[in-house]
């Protein structure tokens, strides 16, 4: 009788062990000291003097600039918007790579609101979650390269800034795509790389898939233009 009792207890213990999994808590580990890094981990919380609120994630020191940084000579004032619209010009060439990357980035960051075609009918507008999104071809809107770049840097009224998610080159690539969308909406000729114009097949690249082209990895290197 004792033996059966023992077996029973072993089984109970096994079941208890197997069932004490709780999705709200992380599982236990073999050697926690080999799992937790010595260095500070991205977004970690540490009891360290100088970490505000214990947060590893901090704002960069004032005055630091990222690699490849170019100063942007326009502020977010009505005068500078007007100045950007007339003076600021696209430094990037229209190449296949730039257009493809622009289309893809546009689909990631802008299409939810502005729509794939730039007609202001993105999914958020269609579902009436976010209203007041203009078409790029809207009468009375003066949309120029400089203006598109400026609005990505600073936003405009209810549109926010996209400067934290994109770098300078990416913003200009998006601008190229926006200018082409506007031209397509207005029925004007598109800006395309020379090769394609020779082939007589003016078509906008579609950035269908969410994954970027391999060349995109090299984009952090801004001095390529």
């Amino acid at each position, binding site marked *: 009788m004792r033996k059966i009792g023992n077996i029973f207890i072993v089984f109970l213990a096994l079941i208890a062990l197997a069932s004490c999994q709780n999705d709200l808590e992380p599982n*236990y580990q*073999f050697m926690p000291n080999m799992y937790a890094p010595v260095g500070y981990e991205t977004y970690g919380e540490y009891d360290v003097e100088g970490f505000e609120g214990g947060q590893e994630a901090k704002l960069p020191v004032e005055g630091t600039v990222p690699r490849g940084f170019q100063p942007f000579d326009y502020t977010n004032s009505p005068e500078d918007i007007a100045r950007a619209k007339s003076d600021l010009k696209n430094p990037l060439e229209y190449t296949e790579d730039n257009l493809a990357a622009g289309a893809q980035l546009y689909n990631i960051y802008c299409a939810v609101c502005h729509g794939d075609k730039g007609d202001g009918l993105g999914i958020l507008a269609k579902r009436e979650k*976010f209203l007041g999104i203009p078409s790029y071809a809207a009468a*009375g809107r003066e949309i120029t390269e400089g203006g598109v770049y400026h609005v990505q840097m600073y936003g405009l009224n209810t549109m926010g800034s996209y400067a934290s998610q994109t770098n300078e080159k990416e913003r200009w690539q998006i601008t190229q795509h926006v200018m082409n969308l506007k031209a397509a909406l207005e029925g004007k000729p598109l800006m395309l790389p020379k090769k394609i114009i020779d082939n007589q097949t003016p078509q906008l690249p579609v950035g269908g898939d969410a994954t970027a082209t391999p060349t995109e990895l090299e984009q952090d290197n801004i001095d390529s233009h």
Partner: protein
Amino acid sequence: MQKVNFKNIFSRVSLLLLVAMLTFSTSVFAQEGDAAAGKTLFNSNCAACHKLDKKATGPALRHVADKYDRDWLYSWIKDSQALIKSGDAKAIEVFEANNKAVMTSFPALSNADIDNILAYTSEEKPLPPAPAPGTGDGVSASGSGVSNNVILGALVFVFLLLIVMLFLVTSTLKKIAAHNGVEYAVEESRKPLWKAFVENQFLLLVSAVLLLLTAAYFMYGFFMQVGVDQGYAPVQPIHFSHRIHAGDNQVDCNYCHSSARKSKTSGIPSLNVCMNCHKNIGEVSEDVLAEGLDEHGVDYNKEIMKLYDAAGWDVSTMSYTGETKPVKWVRIHNLPDFAYFNHSQHVTVAGVACQKCHGPVEEMEIMEQFSPLTMGWCIDCHRETNVNVSGNAYYEKIHEELSKKYGVEQLTAAQMGGLECGKCHY
């Protein structure tokens, strides 16, 4: 027969009334403009600053047509600044009342367009949808839950009572039997089953082996899941639903996790990214709110308020206060320190979809870890997945040589060196 006639009369009268109402109302709309066309115009021109029932950048516009006369409205909407400069008392009053915010002028809108917009703003507010059947159910369900418990308790009580009574009855019966001198037949002592079992060496051996094997099996399973957090779904400081954002509203994963394209970490978006949309989206629509309360027990609007609180956004003035608080998201996916994983290598170079590793994120109300993130999981995929070489000049030469070496058309990640310890452990 009488009754039926009555009914007919009633229905006829109501039909007449309905027809009269319809003709009347259509004639009213014909004079005042087309509300449907007005809605489109309103949504594309005015909704950026005006809501119908709530103050935004500009005042709420429902029934604004009753507040002013038509001509004033025409000139205000076409060029409000000109009207203010002309010294119009009403215009200046509105301008001052709204902190002198400048309303865009709309010279391109015709009077008919404005009539359409005003027809739309004059529509009555739609009644809130009838209380979702779910809420009623919820109450009655919890009610029945209580009664279920009561019934269960009563059953247990009755059961216990029966057992006690049974004992009492047997003991009294035994006493009576003993008193009356009734004798039990004494049972012949047999060898107990377990003793027979212990004496049979073969049976004992087999069952011991079986027992050890099952124990080993369970122990193995138990040890293998130590340190594996598959299914881990902690409670986050803000109830953030990927279902609503990435599913229903189809926001691209990279919109928020924007560093996945180009760095090791995928990153959790900082709050300015949230505010790009939520400056304007202060509350969820009524059906979404009801769904949240019914199915997930969360008040979505309160969760958005938590976001505003952390970002330091003051809803009444529509501006930042500058007092921010960190949102302490609980980290879910976390490889041990000794393993190296890089998102851009998989997302950008290999072109693997997020869902392949993170599962159906766009259906998750609460984010959970879908994959085990064990070494075996990484290795399996490296053995099965081909390297994406198309359009990647970097791979042209190495692919050519390696495919000659292995004699295959398509290289897997493993053949490229995806099994070398040093690639993942450093």
